């Protein structure tokens, strides 16, 4: 009851100085908006990165040779060894380099009438690449690279989505022949658009990696991914992979290879994003503190402006604690309303960011509660000193100033 009338009084006092109140509130609004936007955007991006990494199917490890002069890359037989290890679902080598693609005038569906050349990334992959990495996207036209294509080093290729649009517009290219470095390759399919973190496939032309090695002289793959079956213990499988590496690469020395587990990468991503977010949030907290100082400043001005009022209230029987409460409530109203507006703006900003960056918008209610609690605490902390000054004011001197 008493509390309610105090809150009502505080609102009327704040309304009387609407401009000043708003400007003071702005400090808190900026602080809370940036904290909430940073945390929500950061969380959203991290979540979607993790989703995409783990959405690629099972846990993975990337095996890389460092010393390429001693051992330039992995042979088919060696890759076969890795693929046959217990708990390994398959291996996916990847080669890539830029080559000249040529479209001849006799191609019926292409957008170009004459001879057309373009430099594009040629990726050499195996059938396993399609069955795991681009499984979700699927094929738009035709088929993907098969085991036979890899085994027999056929001259076939699959177009990435963007490249297909560039060369063919909306027509199917399946069955047409394109030259890669003057070698005829039959287009057997078009991939749907890839979304997520690794979208290099969209602008590339994809061939069997054995063809890439043999026909396009792209060298042996010096790195490949091992996909670990979900039913096995990834640590054990990685130990087996490392053993095999040691056996195969004995001549290359102890540090000739590395095996990086996807979980480690995930951990690293999380650690780095947490660090960056922590730093940014730290800056935002400083902004909020500056907002708090703004509140303190305004409340000090208010207290000295309203000296006569404080004196009168004391003469009418307001206890010091009541005066303290009244000014504290004013400070808290500023900071809490600033917090509420900041939360709304912060969520709005992160929603817009999610549309621009392209991840699914979500927010943690806990973060919102925390932001509101934080703004409340700022109001109390920075409102306390001015409120205490008002509460301690000598009523005679306060009345005399009228």
């Amino acid at each position: 009851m008493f509390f309610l009338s105090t809150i009502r009084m505080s609102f009327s006092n704040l309304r009387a100085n609407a401009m000043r109140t708003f400007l003071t509130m702005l400090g808190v609004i900026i602080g809370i908006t940036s904290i909430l936007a940073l945390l929500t955007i950061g969380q959203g991006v991290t979540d979607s990165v993790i989703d995409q990494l783990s959405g690629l199917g099972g846990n993975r490890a990337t095996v890389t040779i460092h010393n390429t002069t001693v051992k330039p890359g992995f042979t088919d037989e060696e890759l076969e060894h890795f693929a046959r290890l217990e708990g390994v679902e398959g291996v996916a080598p990847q080669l890539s380099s830029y080559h000249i693609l040529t479209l001849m005038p006799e191609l019926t569906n292409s957008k170009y009438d004459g001879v057309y050349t373009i430099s594009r990334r040629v990726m050499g992959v195996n059938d396993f690449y399609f069955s795991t990495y681009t499984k979700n996207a699927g094929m738009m036209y035709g088929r993907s690279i098969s085991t036979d294509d890899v085994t027999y080093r056929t001259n076939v290729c699959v177009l990435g989505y963007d490249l297909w649009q560039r060369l063919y517009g909306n027509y199917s290219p399946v069955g047409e022949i394109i030259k890669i470095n003057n070698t005829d390759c039959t287009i057997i399919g078009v991939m749907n658009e890839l979304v997520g973190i690794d979208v290099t496939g969209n602008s590339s032309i994809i061939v069997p990696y054995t063809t890439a090695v043999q026909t396009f002289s792209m060298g042996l793959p010096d790195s490949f991914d091992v996909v670990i079956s979900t039913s096995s213990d990834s640590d054990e499988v990685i130990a087996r992979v490392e053993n095999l590496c040691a056996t195969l690469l004995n001549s290359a020395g102890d540090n000739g290879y590395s095996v990086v587990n996807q979980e480690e990468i995930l951990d690293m991503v999380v650690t780095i994003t947490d660090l960056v977010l922590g730093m940014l949030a730290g800056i935002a907290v400083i902004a909020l503190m500056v907002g708090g100082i703004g509140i303190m400043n305004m409340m000090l001005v208010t207290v000295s402006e309203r000296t006569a009022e404080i004196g009168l209230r004391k003469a009418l029987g307001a206890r010091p604690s009541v005066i303290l409460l009244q000014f504290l409530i004013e400070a808290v109203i500023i900071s809490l309303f600033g917090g509420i507006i900041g939360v709304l703006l912060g969520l709005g900003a992160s929603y817009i960011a999610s549309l621009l960056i392209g991840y699914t918008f979500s927010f943690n209610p806990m973060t919102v509660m925390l932001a509101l609690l934080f703004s409340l605490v700022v109001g109390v902390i920075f409102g306390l000193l001015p409120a205490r000054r008002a509460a301690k004011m000598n009523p005679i001197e306060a009345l005399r100033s009228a």
Partner: protein
Amino acid sequence: MSAGKPVISLTDITKSYQMGDVHFPVLHGITFTVDAGEFVSVLGPSGSGKSTLMNIIGCLDVADSGTYMLGRRTVKGLPERTMARIRNRDIGFVFQSFQLLPRISAIENVMLPLIYAKVPRAQRYARAMAELERVGLADKANNLPRQLSGGQQQRVAIARALVTRPRILLADEPTGALDRATGAQIMDIFQSLNKEGITVVMITHDHKVASFASRTVYILDGKLYSKEEYEALELGEEG
């Protein structure tokens, strides 16, 4: 609150102020008593210490030495919250400059002491309205102070002073900001309140205003004097 019993009794009250290194004695041993139901004016020029005396009587300040009894209670070494409670329940203040809060209506100003007395809202309104009726301003209840004349504002202030039903009404130059006719109306209100049994203590520098009271005490340079002594001293100063 039977008439005749002392409600305010001051014995040898002294007060001085410290301003940096300088010591200003303001009251030098004031002794006087106000009985329940009296209408007493304290007459003195500015600088005589009458405001300090009022602050001590009103429990806004405490004496350096001497005894102040408010009813049966000795006002000395009381915590601030108890002083606040006395100001809220036992004393009603009327100031020269009215001291109404400008942004709230007349009735809200009158309700203010009841908020501090923790009276429920429904009762606050009814009691504040009753007081406004008593000073003849029920129809102006929702006006802001600036929409009222000086006399009306002072009547609102009187209603506010009375709303907690205090035993004592303490007025500091209540007509100082008003013209003579309006001042006389305020004095009429004081006299009729006094007839209803409220003890009135009024501080003024104006003989004519003081004459509305049933008894006058004279203060000069922090001491009380009889009427004759005071007039002699005052003439001496002017001469």
